[in-house]
């Protein structure tokens, strides 16, 4: 477990907290940290050492957000913080554009195709969706089976080269 050895809690308190939060992962996709997801919007501490972590939800109905909030509190409590506040902000709206490069690589290694291209403009029907490469064999001959996969944030795809099904993390 990362115990943030290189970031001094006294001189760089916010950075220290952010490093601790690297242990908090998405409960559905445990290879991704909340930092990879880009949902940690701010970390502040007051003079008394009370910490406030501000997060933003991915999808409106994402049930993982409650679990993530609990996990943040738990991680900070175990690091010795007593006064912990987790706030949620809606604006600016979360977008898959905030997924880190490291996060995209981890997704692919885990077997989930990362979002292709930047978010926005998915309104056209039967539109030319960008090519999604199979995370297992790398082929581009893939097809969408359903817009909604195992979770609201993912679509269900199939690779016509290796015949494997896989999830695709949709652009939002």
């Amino acid at each position, binding site marked *: 477990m990362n115990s943030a050895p290189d970031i001094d809690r006294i001189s760089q308190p916010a950075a220290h907290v952010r490093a601790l939060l690297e242990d908090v992962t998405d409960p559905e996709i445990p290879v991704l940290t909340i930092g990879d997801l880009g949902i940690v919007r701010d970390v502040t501490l007051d003079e008394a050492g009370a910490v406030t972590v501000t997060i933003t*939800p991915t*999808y*409106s*109905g*994402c*049930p993982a957000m409650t679990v993530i909030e609990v996990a943040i509190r738990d991680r900070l409590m175990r690091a010795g913080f007593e006064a912990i506040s987790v706030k949620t*902000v*809606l*604006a*600016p*709206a*979360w*977008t898959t554009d905030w997924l880190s490069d490291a996060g995209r690589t981890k997704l692919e290694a885990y077997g989930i195709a990362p979002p292709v291209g930047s*978010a926005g403009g*998915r*309104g*056209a*029907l*039967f*539109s030319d969706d960008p090519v999604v490469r199979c995370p297992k064999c790398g082929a581009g001959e893939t097809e969408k*089976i*359903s*817009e*909604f*996969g*195992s*979770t*609201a944030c993912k679509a*269900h795809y199939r690779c016509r080269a290796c015949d494997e099904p896989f999830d695709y993390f*949709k652009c*939002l």
Partner: protein
Amino acid sequence: MAESETIAAPTPAHEAQMQASLIDYLLYLGDSNLILSHRLSEWCGHGPVLEEDIALTNIALDLIGQARLLLACAGEMEGQGRTEDTLAYKRDVTEFRNLLLVEEPNGDFAVTITRQFLFSAWGYELFSWLTHSKDAGLAAIAAKSLKEVTYHRRHAGEWMIRLGDGTAESKTRVQAALDDLWIFTDEMFQGLPSDAALIDAGIIPDPDSLRPGWDAMVDRVLVEAMLSKPAPDFRRDGGRLGRHSEALGFILADMQFLPRAYPDASW
């Protein structure tokens, strides 16, 4: 107003009225999402194919997320301690403000997907406008909802085309669904007198202004789906005034049973 008159600053009574109107509007949007979400959840385990079972329930999840945000916003603005849960589970039929369209029974898949298409096409126009609302809270909710509703509209629209331009049976069923549900569509473009002040303040759109965009999308899909656009001389409305069909009573009995039977329960 004569040019020599100065515009008076809003009185406290006026502000209070505006706030009451906005709360009512938030309940309208929140309730519409909540009730439709509940209807979609009724498909869980009964979808025609597994992928649609999952799709409809995921859309329900998005909608209930949006409903939570809207109802929580209304409760906070009201400042009387009502939360998203109190509003969802402790109000009775005449206090609900949802569109009549969303309380209609699911019917077959064609009815459900037609209802979804008509609703999501409206949601797309509505949330596109609301991202520019002068109320920052509502604009923030709209920005998130728009992203999700864009996928709902695409999913439902593609299905309209598959069904309309499908087999003789699918075409019959989706045309019948369209013919039955069309009488509920005008309500999406109606407002209440209390909306006027909110429209003037740039907080909500003139509901009728959403119609051209909706018409354009619906027309395009109906043409490609080879379906005819209904033209009934009858329409149903009244949801925002708490005048609902008997269906809503059954929905609430199902949805509200648990918290009403065990009021002190907590997770």
